[in-house]
């Protein structure tokens, strides 16, 4: 089972750094069989990182998203409007389909709600607390990294 984990955001912009910070914890915890990819933003080339993956996890901060976090399965979405140089994870999956001609691996999005995204800010108190809750949830994902199990957990959230 090859798991690819994307954690993206800017650790110098407050809660925007939740994705990279959780990715760093995963690395420290030694998820040896997982491929960890950090970036400021999702981009076209990240579709190529999904090649050969059996399961993908995207971790990002969310603005005005449900607290403390959401967890759901995501699917390739061709009709999605892009609004910036950054792609949505659903669009990365769609680019994967277009570039490789293959179906993308099952993919899930862990979205941790943030409150403060200002340059130079650290984690907000709320963001720090939610990061801990999300980290505990990642332990549960780690116990059984299989699409069926994660779908079950997504139902619980």
């Amino acid at each position, binding site marked *: 089972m090859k798991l690819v984990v994307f954690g*993206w*955001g*800017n*650790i*110098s*912009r407050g*809660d*925007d750094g939740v994705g990279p910070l959780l990715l760093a914890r995963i690395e420290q915890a030694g998820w040896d069989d997982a491929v960890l*990819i*950090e*970036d*400021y*933003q999702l*981009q*076209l*080339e990240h*579709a*190529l990182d999904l090649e050969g993956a059996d399961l993908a996890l995207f971790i*990002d*901060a*969310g*603005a*005005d*998203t449900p607290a403390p976090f959401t967890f759901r399965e995501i699917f390739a*979405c*061709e*009709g*999605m*409007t*892009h*609004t*910036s*140089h*950054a*792609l*949505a994870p*659903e*669009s990365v999956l*769609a*680019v994967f389909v*277009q*570039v490789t001609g293959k179906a993308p691996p099952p993919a899930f*999005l862990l*979205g941790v709600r*943030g409150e403060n*995204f*200002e*340059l*130079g800010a650290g984690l907000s108190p709320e963001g720090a607390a939610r990061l801990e809750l999300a980290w505990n949830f990642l332990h549960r994902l780690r116990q059984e990294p299989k699409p069926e199990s994660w779908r079950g957990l997504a139902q619980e959230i």
Partner: protein
Amino acid sequence: MFALEQAESPEKLRRIAIEPVTRVEGHGKVTILLDEDNKIHQVRLHIVEFRGFEAFIEGRPYWEVPVTVQRLCGICPVSHLLAATKAMDLIAGYGALTPTAEKLRRLLHYGQIVQSHALHFFYLSAPDLLLGFDSEAGKRNIVGIASAFPDLARQGVLTRKFGQEIIRHISGKRIHGTGVIPGGMNKALVLGERDALRGDIDAVIEWSLEAVGMIGRLHETEPEFYGRFGESRANMMGLVNEDGDLDFYHGGLRARDADGAGIFDHADYAAYGSLLQEDIKPWSYMKFPHIRTLGAELGWYRVGPLARIQICDRLTTPLAEAERQKFIAFNGGAPAHGALLFHWARMIEMLHAAELARALLEDPDILGTDLMADKGPRREEAVGVIEAPRGTLFHHYRVGADDLVSYCNLIVSTTNNNQAMNESIRKVATQFLTGHEITEGLLNHIEVAIRAYDPCLSCATHAIGQMPLQVELIDAGGALVSRGRKGF
């Protein structure tokens, strides 16, 4: 005061706000004031600028700055890294870089230009150009392109990946790289890395050449439309080397007027303060720089690909120079100022950067291990300038005896283009919106002009749900008539 910058009686006009501009990261907003006959009276592009950037850097040790500035922007961290480090080379007291160190930095920079220009073309401009300005909004994106032009989309992804691989090999990491340090480099390129990059470079050059050809053919289909869309005659500025060739990494500043006549040439960029003046306006957070000797109304200028390929005497690589000559001939030999010509110029530059990268990958010096310059006395103040993908980028620092940055001033490419972007969207509004019922397709014309400049609002914040496009129509009394929203 510029035409269409300020309406005489704004309170009597309808207001349309496009906020934020789609596919431009961060928060751009366009406001349009028009009367009951849809005659345009005022058009403004407001951008939430890099407020706090200087404060973010001031107070930090100077040796941290090359790493810190990479966090200013999730789109072009390498550009900030290189401009800042050029200044810190001098602050730290280093002399000329070793040949290997300079070539590694140049290769890094060319990789950044390839990946940035590829992203812009395949993701931002091709959807407009190839699918049409009025196409369904949800399809005007890379996924739409992938459906309609599968080979093009694949080439775009792989070209961008190539640029990112250059960055990874030279910086040591995809992001937060530490390969570039004051005085040189701290990581050599090893044979395996060089060979991996060399294996892909010919394909990237071929795809770049195809992209240039595609844009050129597109312009031939409707030269008047593509050449005149958003046209605003502007002064132009950029770096050239001693021979007058375009140099992305280092050189003197050259400025020419809209007809191509010289304003200044080979000017020392450290003296940018005597050449340029930064003005502020009450309605925008972003400054309005202009050439000091010409004043605000005549001295505004354009930077970036469209300026660079027209003010230089030559591109030093054969394929790109041949394409530049075609571009110049197509436009009758005189400087051209249509906004969509940016895309053509950008692809010529992508080809040029790819050719430059190939030359460096074939240069034995690129595998050298002499990476650090000799060190002399430290300085208190220095300026670093490069030609970033979007245009000239200034980093200016003062450092105290305690090694902490006491002053920082950045003029980024998008700020340099502030007035030029405003002029382009005013032209588009006059060309296409006046007298018409405003539709989503017509409003997209405004965004097409903005995207041509590829403004980077440096908002690495991108959290889910934060970037919808909102269009509000407000009547003369200030009441909300309608609101449209799209996004995710």
